[in-house]
């Protein structure tokens, strides 16, 4: 780790002032400290958000406002989340380990970097880590990489689970920054790599997440399915978040989001359009998968994600529409 100074912000305002001066925020540190030990990240000034008071979960209208400093564990264990937005609790619990969830925060989790092995390895070329150096993953070991939303510059996935559920739940990210407060729908928070993979999300320099807002509960059947190489403590190969409501044997409404499939948490309205109003059946699920994956492209070691995504979608929809 390169040497750095560590300040402690005692309020959101102090934090913003520090961020405005170019400090890097640290909350739980479970991603940042990991990267700093390898010098993948090397900030020289940190500001701790620990005491900024952004760690409350409060109702807001019919929705719920989750402070940026709320830990993943506290969020997943909150009875309101468990009852009214169970998809979020399921997704968080599928991620990492209890130890990591006790430190990882809502804000930090949204900002977590990719797990691409070439991003993580400073001996390897990586456009996300260092612009213009190339992408060693394209022709390398790309088993965990994206098949949607890729560009010539980068094929890395956003690896988190929580964001996938938030995407399906139409969450909004609340921020404060040099240009004032923003409300960013989660669907617009993460960035596909395009020409500039160095920026994973749309946060401006000096801007920080203050909370995530969930809208009113849908009351739908919610299932989070995480497919991975071992039974726990592993990132997703593909994950599927489904929130749907049935009426008269048909899917009245649905939200379907995917993790580790695209370079960002993935939600495609065309997929939902295929499903809405229809009676569930294997043929319908396959049609939805075809639409989802129409532009999917594998890079060798991750070709399997395409059939896997179709199968995982079918399994999750079958589960959510049962009975």
């Amino acid at each position, binding site marked *: *780790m*390169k*040497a750095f100074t560590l300040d402690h912000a005692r309020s959101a305002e102090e934090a913003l002032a520090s961020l405005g001066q170019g400090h890097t925020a640290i909350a739980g540190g479970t991603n940042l400290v990991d990267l700093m*030990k*390898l*010098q993948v990240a090397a900030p020289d000034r940190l500001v701790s958000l620990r005491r900024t008071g952004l760690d409350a979960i409060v109702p807001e209208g019919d929705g719920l406002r989750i402070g940026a400093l709320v830990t993943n564990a506290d969020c997943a264990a909150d009875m309101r989340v468990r009852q009214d937005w169970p998809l979020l609790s399921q997704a968080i619990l599928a991620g990492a380990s209890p130890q990591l969830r006790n430190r990882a925060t809502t804000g930090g989790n949204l900002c977590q970097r990719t*797990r691409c*092995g070439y991003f993580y*390895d*400073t*001996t*390897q070329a990586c456009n996300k880590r260092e612009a213009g150096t190339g992408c*060693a993953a394209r*022709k*390398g*070991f790309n*088993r965990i990489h994206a098949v949607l939303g890729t560009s010539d510059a980068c094929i890395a996935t956003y690896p988190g689970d929580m964001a996938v559920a938030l995407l399906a739940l139409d969450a909004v990210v609340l921020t404060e920054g040099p240009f004032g407060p923003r409300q960013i729908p989660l669907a617009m928070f993460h960035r596909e790599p395009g020409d500039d993979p160095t920026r994973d999300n749309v946060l401006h320099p000096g801007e920080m997440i203050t909370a995530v807002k969930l809208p009113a509960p849908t009351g739908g059947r919610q299932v989070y399915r995480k*497919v*991975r*190489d*071992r*039974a*726990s*403590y*592993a*990132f997703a*190969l593909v994950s599927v978040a489904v929130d749907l409501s049935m009426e008269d044997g048909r899917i009245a409404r649905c939200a379907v989001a995917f993790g580790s499939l695209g370079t960002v948490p993935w939600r495609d309205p065309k997929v939902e359009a295929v499903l809405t109003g229809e009676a569930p059946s*294997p043929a319908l699920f396959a049609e939805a998968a075809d639409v989802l994956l129409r532009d999917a492209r594998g890079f060798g070691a991750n070709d*399997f994600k395409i*059939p*896997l995504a179709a*199968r*995982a979608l*079918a*399994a999750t929809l*079958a*589960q959510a529409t049962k009975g």
Partner: protein
Amino acid sequence: MHLPLSDMYNKPDERNLLDHMHQGVIGKPLDRPEGPLKVSGSATYSAEWRIDGCVDGVLVLASIAQGKATAVHQDEVLARDGVLAVIVDPAMPRRSAQGMATKAPKQDVANVEYFGQPVALVVAERFEQARDAALALRVDYADAADPAPLDPHAAGVKVEPAPDSKPTEGGDLDQAMRDAAYTLDVEYETPGHASAAMEPHATIAQWQGDSLILHASYQMLAYNVKEIAGCLGLSTDKVRIIAPYVGGGFGSKLGITHEAVSAALAARELGRPVRVVMTRQHVFQTVMRRSETLQRVRLAADAAGRLIGLGHEALVSNLPGEQFAEPVTQATEFLYGGENRLLKVEVARICRLTAGSVRAPGEAVGMQVLEAAMDELAEKIGIDPVELRKRNLPAKVPVKGTPYSSRMLVEALEQGAQAFGWAARKNRPCQTREGDWWVGMGMASAARVNMMVPAKARVTLKADGTALVETDQTDIGTGTYAILGQIAGEMLGLPIDRVMVKLGDTALPPGAGSGGSFGAISTGSAVMHACEAIREKLARKLDCKAEDLAIQDGVARSPEGHGRPLTDLLAGEDLAETGSVKPGKTAKDFSQASYGAFFAEVAVHAFTGEVRVRRMTGAFGFGRVLNAKTARSQCLGGMVWGIGSALTEELVFDTRDGHLVTHDLAEYHVPVHADVPAIEVILLEERDAAASPLQAKGVGELGICGAAGAIANAVYNACGVRVRSFPLTLDKIIADLPDPFASAA
């Protein structure tokens, strides 16, 4: 009957001494005596010794695969806060030593032979300073002009017969394959594996004059002394290694590794103690890998399912000049019949991290493939897989004709099958569906060669009636503390809380070391011999023969019946004896192995192809059980390794530049709690006098040897997909899964 005149084990000792003692501690499932230390964090592992003035070093790894480190820009980092030294020394090894090497491995780190090879050590006052400086250290490299291949399957790669071994040939396998009623000719592949012990390699080196003391984490200390003495040009009496607790080894700590030598060099240069702890990434990249294998199995059986031909050929890999080649066909030599045979191992010479011993070298990967192939054959013939094994157990080792010392394979197959409920297995795949899961059962034989190696141990019966066992033998989780205490307690008639065991210090008599499942039986035999000598002396004091001496709870009794407390007999004097054992003719006169059988039930997700092991049963016969609790744990641990080998573990090397992509515990997937179901272990008692004076055989690795095959066979039985490439990750399964919306086929 008198004590063996020689310590060479030339004739089976049929006295079964331990069965004729009176204390009743041998074999019992006693708690590990060091348990309270381990569960309270009070056991001191190598990085944890508080040594005044100690500073920290961090290794620097090469970022090219082959060539030379032409310049190391030391001055740039020496200027940094706290940085004390940059060690670049031709004495630093560029490869780890192989197990039982007894001499220095290849040195001169300026020559780079694999991506990630250590080239320097940076030492600083504090760890963060050393790590930071190590990452910043600039090293110039010149790529090799004519680089050797990085990939064992590259065109033009040099392939040689495995050193130190000859193919086994018998009869005419090709003819048998033409003539046989049933044949199978299949290729399987297994990936590279890592030991991944939970404690990273760590050494604290300190000099006292011209003597070197290492607190280190190694498995075979007496050998490690020779290896590091060789690296440094020291005589072995100037080196002492202390390792009372080793946080797992699994082969990776058999031979001396980079951090020990570089710590010693740094400590000598700086005149102060130096600690070098490998990062987890360093452990993966610099220590050792189990070679990947490509295996061809040919089976030829007659109409009754008896093998008339058996071919097992393997291609493994290693650096040029390494003698070690994964002995893939080791158990195939003796396990099944088939006089027409070809067993052979070849080595592709590539520039990749040293390949060496990872737990159960040979059988770990050879058995899982052989047992999968046998399962395929059973299906072809249309007989039960257990029955196929039973029909193919030869009376003597094929071709060589050696008799077996003992073999409880049939008992293991039958008792294991019974306990597991094997009779409920459907003999066609895709017959059992539970919700979204296809469920199936599979089995495999277990076999692992048994060997004894030279070992010494000193036992002192103290005047106060307690006993002390001393040897440099290590306990790497194997239960040595418990077992050696139980052997001494049984032989000397002492309650277990009056027996102390001191391990892991080369100032003590050299034990066998922990490896090859030979530690307990070798060093344990030395303990037994020492106790025999003590019993001789005690018998003389009671004027009787040693075999008539009965000691229990510290009271000695002769046939006359007078009970004398040992403290009386000893009359204020300690009785110390050093026992010694060496392998002898029994090793050649008999084929010695531990045996067993695995049964696994798995569920395969009908949509995603995820595989979960639902339950496993293992039955094992390995001679006398020295401690039922620790033996069971060894078997459990081995079967967990089998789960990892079957389903998740894989070292991936990027063949463009040779670097190891999966170089941490997030990417190299060892099984987690949730991967491991209820596992039943059945221990079968037997006595194998040829194997050791204890009548015991090794058990430390047996639980791996074939387990992954049982799981692969269960996967096939569940969903009808036969994957011939380990690990059985879902991407290899989903292509051929039946329609997920179908129920039983």
